[in-house]
């Protein structure tokens, strides 16, 4: 790490360290200027990326024959391409998903910066599945900014260089005499040309490799400044198109009647013909986990699926409930190290309920499957895996399946999987018609992916003012990594700093979990119980639970050792960036200020993705607050003030980063206090947003502030998931201090079922008819 920072901060040493390797791009043969950069090879965030840190090139170093020969032979597949068009705009189809995280805005900023083009002249779209990109088309692990920061900038910088070279050639002047600004190349003589007017002349006629000089951070005018989202106007006018807003000829609404247990199967459908004759209905087809109906409107699909009479076969977890899963976890937990004599120890055990990663937009996909080809439209974070698996399921070659990535109304881990796209393809194939499939809200909660229940046991030993050991044994119902991350690990297994032959899950656990404190002998281990729930990541994988348990234990240790939680953390922290965000939080959040009984502050720290966050909250646990009444909602303790202090390395767009932190906070709040799934006899009981209590306006803090720390690096850290863990932890710690009781089961209201479950059959409830009575 020290070496990397050195290289990043000091161009000269970076150059010396990497010899002749430089950031490279290719001018492509195209009607107007197009520049490609290999993503994943020239500029990933690994050892190779360090080699690619830009440094001001000396003339003799710009490019040599050897470079040319090497590169001419290199494949030009796997490129991401910035194009400059005759209208003066630039465009880029980025191989990532946009699900609200602001990726497209950040990418547009990278292009605008290096190209010297106004931000509103940059258009960013989402690339279709591109199998040749291998695992470089995966949106997850808060990695997008880290992995495409250099490639995108490189392509844009090369485009700018090429535009300058083109103008210089036309004007018979030296390129060094030219400047660029706002999409115009200018010469001191007063001569100027817009990018649009140069775009054709600058185009390549054959692939031409070039070396590129990137801007120095001190010259940035776009990156690092707060910008609004590029899709904000579309969002507020209703013009932004999500999956179900796309019109594909012949693709009519489709929905599915589902079994009363997770992954149940169909034994018999008794009235398919009668249902097919219902108003507006065109087709009925039995599929793997249900019976699909297709019709003129989704409303008529709901009527039809409810009218189906189906005999169901068993699901995959029929006998399981919260209690049975918890017993399995407890019996599978790995043993703790037995402490030596004469040391004191603290033991604690925390359980975390199943949670739903469902976005607000229900899972949906459009599929048009023909005899020899298929076309899919869906929000997919790993479209290549979707393409391959859908092709297999349909019996088509992979290249016969076109997968379009559409913008998603949230993801939170859900769109790492392509369950709904595969199901839409199956339905379209069986019906022989294009379909627009939407899961119902209830489907999303009951049959969709979940973050599995887990148990974290922690033991810390201490003596003479020192913490001697810290052990954490995390036991979880199995998390499904079948979305491609597993393959990425397999292909890079030899390079990873983990020993032995761990499972995917153990590898990911080891790669993501660490303790930022000097707590002596530290061991953190994962064990998984194989259970066939539909699982996946949920805005991070293990960290929110692991960190919540850890930070609660830190407070316990501080208490036992007679120290203030902040003073104790300062004493034991080994991460200087965490120390800095902690200090800032203490100052801005007025740690230790006087509060009434039943109200308390809490602090939570977490570092991951090369970023660091401190969260400081104040929670009100007084009866008059806890017992507030909201129709069909849960109230309980309220966080009245919250502060997120974030060090995201180089914050590309501080305003976007603030938004990420705000979202992370509200997710952490939900995990700590209100939102969970209750599993009963093989299925979650939750079926609506008035059952699954994600944070609502009456829960969110009226005062939430985000402080973005000044840059601590040349590179952005991950941010999308970074803030959930510290927020969750801070709220849990505050709750413990306000009530005087250590919470050990999360969310804290999980023990009470605060709603009347919707019927399991039919699987989707009928829509109400009294909407006008509630108009306001």
């Amino acid at each position, binding site marked *: 790490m020290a070496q990397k920072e050195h290289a990043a901060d000091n161009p000269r040493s970076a150059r010396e360290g990497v010899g002749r390797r430089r950031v490279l791009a290719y001018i492509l043969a195209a009607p107007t200027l197009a520049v490609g950069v290999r993503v994943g090879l020239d500029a990933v965030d690994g050892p190779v990326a360090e080699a690619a840190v830009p440094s001001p090139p000396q003339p003799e170093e710009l490019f040599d024959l050897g470079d040319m020969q090497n590169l001419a032979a290199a494949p030009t597949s796997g490129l991401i391409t910035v194009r400059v068009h005759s209208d003066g705009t630039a465009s880029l189809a980025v191989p990532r998903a946009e699900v609200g995280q602001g990726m497209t805005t950040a990418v547009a900023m990278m292009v605008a910066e290096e190209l010297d083009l106004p931000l509103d002249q940059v258009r960013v779209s989402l690339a279709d599945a591109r199998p040749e990109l291998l695992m470089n088309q995966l949106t997850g692990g808060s990695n997008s900014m880290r992995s495409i920061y250099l490639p995108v900038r490189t392509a844009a910088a090369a485009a700018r260089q090429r535009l300058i070279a083109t103008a210089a050639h036309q004007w018979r002047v030296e390129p060094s005499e030219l400047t660029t600004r706002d999409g115009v190349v200018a010469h001191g003589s007063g001569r100027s040309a817009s990018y649009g007017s140069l775009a054709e002349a600058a185009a390549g006629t054959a692939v031409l490799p070039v070396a590129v000089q990137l801007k120095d951070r001190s010259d940035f005018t776009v990156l690092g400044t707060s910008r609004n989202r590029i899709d904000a106007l579309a969002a*507020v006018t209703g013009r932004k198109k999500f999956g179900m807003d796309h019109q594909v000829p012949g693709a009519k609404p489709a929905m599915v009647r589902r079994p009363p247990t997770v992954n149940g199967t169909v034994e018999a459908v008794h009235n398919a013909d009668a249902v097919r004759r219902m108003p507006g209905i065109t087709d009925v087809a039995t599929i793997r986990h249900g019976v699909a109906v297709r019709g003129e409107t989704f409303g008529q699909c709901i009527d039809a699926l409810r009218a189906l009479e189906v005999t169901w076969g068993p699901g995959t977890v029929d006998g399981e409930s919260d209690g049975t899963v918890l017993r399995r976890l407890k019996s599978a937990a790995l043993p703790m190290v037995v402490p030596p004599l004469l040391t004191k120890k603290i033991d604690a055990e925390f359980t975390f309920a199943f949670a739903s990663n469902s976005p607000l937009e229900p899972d949906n996909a459009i599929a048009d499957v023909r005899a020899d080809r298929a076309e899919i439209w869906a929000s997919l974070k790993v479209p290549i895996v979707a393409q391959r698996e859908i092709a297999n399921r349909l019996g088509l070659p992979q290249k016969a399946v076109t997968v379009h990535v559409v913008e998603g109304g949230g993801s939170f881990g859900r769109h790492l999987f392509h369950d709904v796209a595969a199901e839409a393809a199956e339905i379209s194939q069986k019906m022989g018609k294009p379909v627009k499939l939407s899961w119902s809200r209830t489907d999303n909660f009951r049959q969709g992916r979940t973050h599995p229940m887990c148990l974290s046991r922690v033991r810390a030993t201490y003596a003479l003012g020192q913490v001697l050991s810290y052990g954490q044994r995390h036991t979880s119902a199995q998390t499904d990594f079948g979305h491609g991350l597993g393959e990425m690990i397999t292909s890079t297994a030899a390079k990873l700093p983990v020993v032995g032959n761990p499972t995917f899950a153990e590898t990911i656990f080891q790669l993501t979990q660490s303790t930022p404190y000097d707590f002596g002998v530290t061991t953190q281990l994962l064990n998984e119980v194989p259970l066939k729930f539909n699982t996946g990541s949920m805005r991070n994988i293990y960290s929110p639970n692991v960190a919540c348990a850890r930070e609660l234990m830190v407070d316990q240790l501080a208490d036992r050792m007679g120290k203030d939680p902040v003073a104790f953390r300062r004493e034991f922290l080994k991460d200087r960036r965490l120390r800095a965000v902690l200090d800032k939080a203490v100052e801005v959040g007025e740690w230790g200020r006087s509060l009434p009984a039943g109200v308390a502050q809490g602090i939570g720290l977490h570092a991951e993705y090369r970023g660091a966050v401190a969260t400081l909250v104040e929670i009100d646990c007084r009866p008059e607050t806890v017992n507030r009444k909201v129709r069909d909602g849960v109230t309980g303790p309220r966080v009245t003030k919250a502060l997120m202090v974030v060090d995201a390395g180089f914050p590309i767009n501080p305003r976007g980063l603030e938004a990420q932190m705000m979202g992370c906070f509200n997710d952490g709040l939900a995990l700590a206090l209100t939102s969970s799934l209750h599993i009963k006899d093989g299925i979650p009981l939750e079926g609506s947003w008035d059952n699954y209590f994600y944070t609502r306006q009456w829960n969110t803090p009226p005062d939430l502030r985000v402080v973005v720390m000044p840059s601590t690096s040349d590179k952005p850290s991950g941010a999308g998931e970074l803030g959930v863990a510290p927020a969750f932890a801070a709220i849990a710690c505050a709750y413990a201090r306000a009530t005087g009781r250590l919470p050990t089961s999360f969310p804290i209201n999980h023990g009470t079922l605060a709603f009347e479950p919707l019927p399991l059959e039919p699987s989707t409830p009928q829509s109400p008819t009294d909407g006008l009575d*509630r108009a306001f």
Partner: protein
Amino acid sequence: MPSHTFKLNGKRITVEAEDNVRLLWVLRDLLGVTGPKYGCGLGVCQACTSHINGKAFNPCSVPVSKVVPDDEITTIEGLPATVGKDLHPMQEAWLELDVAQCGYCQPGQIMTAVAKVRQASAEGREIEDADLDEIRNICRCGTYTRIREAIKAGAKNM
């Protein structure tokens, strides 16, 4: 098939649909008006919130037969026209504060916000935190703080 006539975003329209089809599907599937979003179909998430005669309501919970010819339905697409501008002040506030994340809930949030502010002003008062706490619209991205700030800012220009 029965036909239904009402005013939609300032224009009188007639559409053929079975009586019990909820207005949301008439708008989205038959008329191609996709600003109102489907988030639950249960009158819970509020993603489809639109206005009927100026009041906020959930089209997912109203059979089209309950909409009568004099009713004026306004979706997010028709909101700016209600003030005769390209954007409603609430939309401008939303842009100013860069509220949206994924954007899926935002049309419903804005339609709710406008109705909430009108409600408060009809009662002769400004919008307060207690009003904001009553808003039921889900924002699963969790941009609640910016929503609160934008409603207060937008209210000043309404």
